[in-house]
């Protein structure tokens, strides 16, 4: 499933976001922030919408509207009422940033980052002047019953107070939505900044912080930034001190797969307060794809260390989970930790998975991992 594609329409204008509507009789006050989806069942471009997404080749039955009519590529034909799309008139780029029916809505706060991780799946940009404002506009358009939302990046906290305001905005417009923020935590070394998050009093917020090793030189090498470990650790302590829930996330690569138990021991002694420790399989896109030869390790080759790490955390009453690992690569003892963690739009199963008895409990694979996966992938018989 693609989240971005190009349309043939071009005009002069700034990027903007719209909510998709399929209702030509939509109350008029709502139309200015919405795009009407034209389809064989809705061929009337009723006036007042910000744009029109035309999924048909049919000529419009009504007179040509004042707002742009944008041919919708067939790759995005899955769009439904309530989804949110970002439109870039100068280049024709369309980007789906929110899908009402998905449980995996992840939005980019900024593409800038102060780490440069060897396995980054979303390589950073030098500058990003627009992600935050598009997100700012999107939040009020999201469904108020959205169960969960992920703030991702780049490094969201680089926005400083703007970042805090985005969290406040999420709390105001999405009061029932669990907010998961993926941040390297470095800037929370400033206690006041950690306090700022706590002071928003968001009812359900977790900061997911990547920590790739228990020793500074190993972590700093992986994130390619000297001093990053110290910053991140200080950030974790400050957030905890302010009562903000912290999840630790370790992406397992050949650089840390041999020391998972040592890592778990470190977490149990230093961060016993964390609300989850996620052991994550590699997503081979972005820099991870560039560096795949030096990063790749087959999950079956670190299974024993992973088992020790999880048992240790469990003994210390620290919740832990395994992301992005197919059940056939894990011993059965570990299945209880495995989560269906891969976002629906990039989640695939192989031929061997189709008849598998536990497919419905398995996370499957990243679409990018179809070629690069464990040698242990197999059908588990009923």
């Amino acid at each position: 499933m693609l989240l971005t594609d190009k349309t043939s329409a071009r005009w002069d204008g700034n990027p903007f976001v719209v909510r998709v509507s399929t209702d030509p009789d939509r109350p008029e006050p709502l139309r200015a922030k919405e795009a009407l989806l034209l389809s064989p069942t809705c061929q009337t471009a009723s006036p007042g919408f910000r744009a029109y997404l035309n999924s048909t080749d049919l000529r419009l039955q009504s007179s040509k509207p004042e707002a742009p009519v944008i041919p919708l590529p067939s790759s995005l034909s899955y769009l439904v009422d309530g989804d949110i799309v970002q439109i870039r008139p100068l280049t024709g780029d369309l980007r789906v940033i929110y899908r009402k029916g998905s449980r995996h809505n992840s939005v980019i706060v900024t593409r800038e980052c102060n780490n440069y991780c060897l396995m980054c799946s979303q390589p950073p940009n030098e500058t990003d002047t627009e992600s935050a404002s598009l997100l700012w506009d999107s939040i009020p358009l999201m469904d108020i019953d959205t169960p969960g939302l992920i703030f991702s990046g780049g490094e969201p906290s680089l926005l400083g107070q703007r970042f805090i305001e985005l969290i406040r905005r999420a709390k105001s417009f999405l009061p029932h939505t669990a907010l998961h923020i993926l941040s390297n935590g470095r800037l929370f070394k400033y206690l006041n900044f950690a306090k700022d998050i706590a002071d928003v009093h968001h009812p359900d917020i977790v900061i997911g912080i990547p920590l790739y090793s228990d020793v500074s030189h190993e972590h700093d090498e992986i994130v390619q930034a000297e001093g990053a470990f110290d910053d991140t650790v200080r950030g974790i302590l400050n957030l905890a001190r302010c009562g903000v829930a912290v999840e630790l996330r370790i992406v397992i690569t050949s650089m840390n797969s041999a020391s998972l138990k040592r890592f778990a021991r470190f977490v149990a002694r230093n961060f016993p307060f964390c609300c989850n420790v996620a052991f994550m399989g590699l997503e081979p896109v972005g820099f991870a794809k560039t560096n795949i030869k030096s990063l790749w390790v087959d999950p079956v080759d670190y299974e024993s260390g992973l088992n020790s790490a999880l048992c240790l955390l469990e003994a210390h009453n620290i919740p832990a989970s395994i992301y992005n690992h197919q059940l056939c690569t894990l011993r059965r003892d570990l299945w209880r930790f495995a989560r269906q963690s891969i976002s629906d739009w990039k989640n695939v199963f192989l031929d061997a998975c189709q008849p598998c008895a536990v497919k419905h409990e398995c996370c499957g694979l990243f679409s990018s991992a179809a070629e690069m996966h464990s040698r242990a992938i197999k059908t588990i018989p009923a």
Partner: protein
Amino acid sequence: MSTGHQHRRPPFEPRSAFSPVAFHYSLLPFRFTKLDESRYVLTNFSGDYFVTERAVLVGLVKKTLTPDSSAYVELKSRHFLIDSHNAVALQLLATQYRTKQQPLSEFTGLHMFVPTLRCDNSCFYCQASRKPSTAEGFDMTESVADRGVDFMFRSPSTVLKLEFQGGEPLLNFGILRHIVERTRALSLLNGRLVNIVICSNLSFLSDEILDFCENHEVNLSTSLDGPRKLHNLNRPNVDFDSYERTCAGITRIRERLGVQRVSALVTTTRYSLNQPNEIVDEYVKQGLVSMFLRPINPYGFASRVGTPTSYSTVEWLDFYKKALDYIIHLNLKGVRLREEYTALLLRRILTPFGTGFVDLQSPAGIGISAVLFNHDGGVYPSDEARMLAEMGDRRFCLGNLLTDSYENMMLSDVLLDSLSETMTETVPNCVDCGFQPYCGADPIRHYRLQGDIVGYKPKSEFCQRHMGLFRHLIGLLERQDESTEVLMRWLN
């Protein structure tokens, strides 16, 4: 995609750009002790440990470890050394230390009441110098009880533990009921959580008492020394049926209140030493999931010369190790049973959290972890201080509920001096001991046995016993086998 901004291009920095400079590291404070013939255990002040060969210890101190060695990385991970790449270890250590010492900020948690000194058992190891069931003048009055409850609520602790000791507390059930009802009423008013336990031989358990325990969420703790013959030998009563009465009581509590509502401890006598497995089996037979193995304490009748209670610390450790081995063996066969003192020590060794156990604190737990109200209103900083007073030495008596104020008693010289003079961070031998972060000061025991609250550690049975326990448990943890896994499960 943002317009006009290209991704920064790889290349990435090589490993060498991040490697610590060889031999340029600083040591963080640590202590070490020989673990066995070939290994040493290193501990830092927050209680993290590392077991290694002598050569690595020497290398660490002489700064000849190289950053690519596994010992270097382990020691860095556990905050024994710090290098140019990393200064945050001090903050992590400070946080762990605060976490470990957190119980201090709660102040007194455990409050023990002695409703009566009378008891129907006549255990030869009685540490409390019990009085016969019919004796007069050994029961707590209502005015003493009320002042005791008021005293308890003066403690700032968010969680209070109210424990009834004896004598046999159920012999004065009237005052016990009064104390519990008053406590429950005040705990609602004060917004405190109060856990209540009656330590009883269960002889006098009745439906009325069980109903009472259910209504007021009261747990029971009892003594079960082993199989019938051993138990009745250790804990005789007039009809020689104390075993039957205790077991019947355990069964009634399990059925009426629930299996988690009764716990039991084993007092080890000379007769116990050769039957560790039989004692453990008795606990399995009674369906108990926890047991507490304790040696005889040198107070009360137990301290009389020539009693069959005396045995050496080495003999007790041997008994403990055999019993623990057997308990682990049973766990591996799927039996749920844990030894609580072991679990407590493991929490001290493996977690950053402090434990409130009175005997293992520094500063000592007397007064600031626990306080005891005797039947006559005497206030003592621990059960042992009261036992000593029953033997005629009232040195550690803080005052009387009827005549003295909370402030005067809790700030008395005898308490404050005992605390400040015995901190293991500073006293001879403890200051250099690798097990210091796991151990504690027991001024009253050392005063009783050696005539001095600090004590002379090379001859201290407390020291010998705990060194033996720590050595044994760290040895088991280092085996990294299935028995280690059993012990890890006891952490929570």
